[in-house]
């Protein structure tokens, strides 16, 4: 697998993502600056977390229209794998790679803590190394993670198996208490229709080493390496 990480002014999780990809792939991913207009020959692009362009206008909106994102979108439309984490999820959603939008957290507070996630499907190149229904511990760190889409879009996402992860309690239950940001139907991550694009608010790259308190993010990177090597 060859991977690239797109870096914007204000990205801040790109080194964590680089470490997680290096651990899984056995070699370093390529770092691509936002002003570049061409993507190297890779089969995965990771859009990392942070505060690209200071979250001006709407979070992710300015980055979504940068030259490199146009290239990412064109390749994703042809089937290349793309994963957007946190601000990366906001960016690829603003770019139109995924439906819906991430709104301000319902609590209005920045949330930074470990949450539980339920794996909704193992039928994807991002989640094949998990069991369906498995409950993971992965950190979140965001102010705008409140997933919103109209009810019709949400029904379609569910009917097409496009929900990747949901926030849940210790027994895998979905309720307001275990929904850290007010996301519709507790959605934490979604695929596009063809499942070559994943966007998620939690940070799997910060759950790959026992020092981080959880290694539950490792299987996500392993899944991508298995599928794309």
């Amino acid at each position, binding site marked *: 697998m060859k991977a690239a990480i797109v870096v914007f002014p204000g990205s801040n999780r790109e080194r964590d993502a680089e470490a997680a990809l290096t651990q899984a792939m056995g070699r370093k991913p390529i770092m691509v600056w936002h002003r570049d207009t061409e993507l190297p020959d890779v089969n995965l692009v990771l859009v990392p977390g942070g505060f690209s362009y200071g979250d001006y206008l709407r979070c992710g909106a300015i980055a979504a229209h940068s030259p490199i994102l146009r290239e990412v979108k064109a390749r994703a439309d042809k089937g290349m794998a793309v994963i957007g984490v946190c601000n990366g999820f906001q960016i690829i959603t603003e770019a139109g790679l995924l439906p819906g*939008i991430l709104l301000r957290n319902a609590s209005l507070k920045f949330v930074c803590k470990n949450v539980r996630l339920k794996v909704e499907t193992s039928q994807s190149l991002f989640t094949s190394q998990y069991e369906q229904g498995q409950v993971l511990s992965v950190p979140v760190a965001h102010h705008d993670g409140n997933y919103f889409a109209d009810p019709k879009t949400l029904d379609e996402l569910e009917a097409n198996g496009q929900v990747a992860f949901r926030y849940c309690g210790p027994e895998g239950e979905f309720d307001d208490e275990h929904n850290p940001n007010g996301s519709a139907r507790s959605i934490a991550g979604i695929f596009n229709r063809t499942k070559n694009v994943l966007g998620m608010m939690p940070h799997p790259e910060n759950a790959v080493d026992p020092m981080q308190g959880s290694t539950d993010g490792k299987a996500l990177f392993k899944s991508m390496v298995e599928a794309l090597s």
Partner: protein
Amino acid sequence: MKARVHITLKSGVLDPQGRAIAHALGTLGFGGVNDVRQGKYIEIDLNERDKAKAKQQVDQMCAKLLANTVIENYAIDLVD
């Protein structure tokens, strides 16, 4: 020509910031505030002098970047 663009949240979209403002107004003693919705105001200075063309141009700006039509509506006002 100047374009004045108002971007507002669609009805039904939760506006926690508007709610916080409403709460703060209540705390300050302003009674009778039923609801507050927060939006954005953007002013754009344009070279274009033709109103119809300017309108079309700003409309595209709104659809592509300034507003996210999943959650927002926009209104354009042109002034000479």
